[in-house]
Structures are given as structure tokens and as C-alpha cells.
């Protein structure tokens, strides 16, 4: 379960007790609470669940994983099937 969607932080500010950001998901934006990921800055991607960011997407790790998968694909192709 846990529908959490990655979105891009467009802006953020401290309002009252909270840190609140405007996050973009495809062509839609929504207010998101950054209280659990206060270090997220403009341009960062965060994973959002019920209006709260629960983690910052680790761009480097994501790239690494995809690169590894693509490499594996290439090797398998070369090996033939």
C-alpha cells in the first residue's frame, strides 16, 4: 500500500510550525509538508504520501540503478537468447 509519488520541489517556506513546499507532479502542483525532509531544496525530488514528503529521491542512486539495469540488458542481448 502506500501510494507515494515523486514530485519536484518548486518553492518552499516556513509557515507557522511547518515547512511547506509547492511540489510539481507532471502538470499538477500541490502543497506538501516538508517537515520530515526539511533539507529538501528547490529542484530536489521528494517522495510524497498523503501530503507529506517522506524522503528525498536520491538522484545518484536512481541513476546508478538504471544504468546497472541497462547494462544487464545489454549483456543479455549480446549473449543472445
Amino acid at each position, binding site marked *: 500500500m502506500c501510494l507515494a509519488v515523486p514530485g519536484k520541489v518548486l518553492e518552499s517556506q516556513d509557515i507557522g510550525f511547518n515547512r511547506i513546499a509547492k511540489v510539481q507532479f507532471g502538470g499538477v502542483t500541490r502543497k506538501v509538508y516538508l*517537515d520530515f525532509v526539511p533539507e529538501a531544496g528547490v529542484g530536489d525530488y521528494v517522495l510524497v504520501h498523503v*501530503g507529506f514528503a517522506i524522503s528525498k529521491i536520491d538522484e545518484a542512486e*536512481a541513476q546508478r*540503478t538504471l544504468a546497472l539495469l541497462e547494462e*544487464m540488458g545489454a549483456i*543479455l542481448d549480446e549473449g543472445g*537468447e
Partner: protein
Amino acid sequence: MKYIDEYRDGKLAESIAQAIRGRLTQPRVLMEICGGQTHTIMRYGLEDLLPPEIELVHGPGCPVCVAPLEVIDQALAIAAQPEVIFVSYGDMLRVPGSRTDLFRVKAAGGDVRIAYSPMDAVRLARENPSRPVVFFGIGFETTAPANAMAVWQASREGLRNFSMLAAHVLVPPAMRAILASPACRVEGLIAPGHVCTVMGSREYEDLARDFHLPIVIGGFEPVDLLEAIRLLVDQLEDGRAQVENQYVRAVTRTGNLAAQRIMEQVFEVCDQKWRGIGEIPASGYRIRAEFARYDAQRVFGTGQITADEPKECISALVLQGLKKPSDCAVFGARCTPEFPLGAPMVSSEGVCAAYYAYRRHAPGGPQ
């Protein structure tokens, strides 16, 4: 959409499936815990890409399905009260209680509203100071921090009319109970990626060790799940039993400490009943005494409501992965999303609902 589309790439999926086929030497039974993962498996037909020797068994990862019957009944009792604004996540509206559900309570005049975020309920409380606003706080560890924040926020603002009916369930104790059952055939586990985003992967190290079980923290997109399965197959073929993280872009070993802190402030661990499974020790959260005025159960005195779980219902066996929905005599016949007999048929992440939406016409399912 970034970080979504790349993980729905069919070509990547095919390479992973190929790698799995290349490695697998014997049948394996794997369990994915999370309802969202079950949903992805069904929606993308992942079982068609996997070798038939891999059997995927679906675990109890649907907090909507496992919220105890008496909590649903308590929610219904509160929502039916005249002045109350009852706010809930959309998932809960169709879940059947002992006699009715939130949709019917709404139809009868209850002020039941859907929220995307618990902070919406806090806002409603602020905007309607003369009416009690109650938020139905269900969920796993992924949702618990947000629910905790709502209570914490209400207390900081001194909102006298806000309270939460809480029913949180924790994954690792439930997994321990399921794995300890003698009927359990699971050889490898896909752990719930978003729960681990909050709690960290470290919670699963004991399980891997105690049951000598390979565990891979998996994401929710089809490529994530296939990759998690590939890592499990590798472990099984190598004879390893470790906790590995496939969902590295979101999960770390320690998780989100800020989220864990807020939960610790507002909640405490308690024994918890899981609908269809029974009571599992230390598997839930309740609101701490310091926040008693925000605990709807105490505010409305509904703690006395009890409910009898039907003992012969197959939900229990399905949620523990011991039976499939298609094994159920009434699946797709008397039990459908329009006339659900149990929660797994109603919740969008319920395994029965997922089967019904995507699989019931497949060979082996009822026609």
C-alpha cells in the same frame, strides 16, 4: 513523469525477466507484503513475464483490509453523530463494518468527507470551531507520521474540536507472526518500500536472520518489483539470507528519523488486532495519554464497542498468503466489489479487489 516512467519501461522489464529465467533452477514461493505491490503485479501482468516456477503469494499489506472490525464500527458510530464532521481517506469509505459502511452513513445524513491529507482535517477543525472534527487515522508506518503530525499540530494550535480515531498497524510483527506459522511456504520476501522509507531497512534484519529468509526491500513500479524478485532469486540460488535494498532511491538503512521522532512523541506501541488474522502483540500504535484529548476513542467513549469477527471467513487465509482469492468459494460470485463480504474485496489495494479487477477471467479464476 520523472522517477516513474523509467521504472515502467517494458524493455528493462524484459531484460530482468530474462535474467531471472537464466538463474532460476527450481520452483520458489515469494511473498510481496504490500497491497500497492500486489496492485502493480496485477495491473502490469508481471506474473506473465515471470517463469511459472515462481509463485507469488500476497501478504497482508493493506491497512484498510486489516483495520479491525471494531474500529470500523467505532468510526461508523462517531460519523453518524449529528454535529460531527468525519474525515477519512477515500479507501475507507466502502469498507464494511458489522452492519453498515461510511457511504451508507453518509447517505443517511452523516457529514462524511474525503481527505487526501490528514492536515486537511486539521484545517477543517480550524474552520469549524463549533463542530467536532474527527479524522480516521489508519495506515501502516508510511502513513503514521502524517497522522501523528495532525495530532501534534492540533495540540500546538490548541484546537479543542479535533480528534483522531487511530488504527495503525506495524509490518514487522505481522510478518513475524505469518512466517512463524507452520503452514507458511514463503521462501523469500519483498518488503514494503514505502514503509521502509520511513522506518528503514534495519527492521527486517532480525527477520532475515531468525527465519533464514532472503528479504529485498522493493519499490512499487513494475521494474522495481521485477528487480526485487531477481535479487531474491539470486539470494535463493546462492543460499544467502540477507536484507537487500532494491529501492535505493528512497530507502536507507535507518529510514526517516524526523518521521520516526514525531511518531514516538504522539504514539506508543500496543498489541493490535488485525482483521481476519487476530491479535498480534506489539503490532500497532495507540495515541499516548498526553494526547488523550485528541484520541477520538476516549473523546467519544467508543472504546467499549466490540465486534465479532466471523471465524470461518477466508480473508484470514488470503491475507496470510495461505490461500488465493480464486480459492474462495464466493469470490466473484456472492463476493464482488459491489457486494463485498470482506475488506480485501473493497479496498483498492485489497488482494481480492486486485484479483477481481485484473485476473478473474484468467484461467484458474472463476468465470
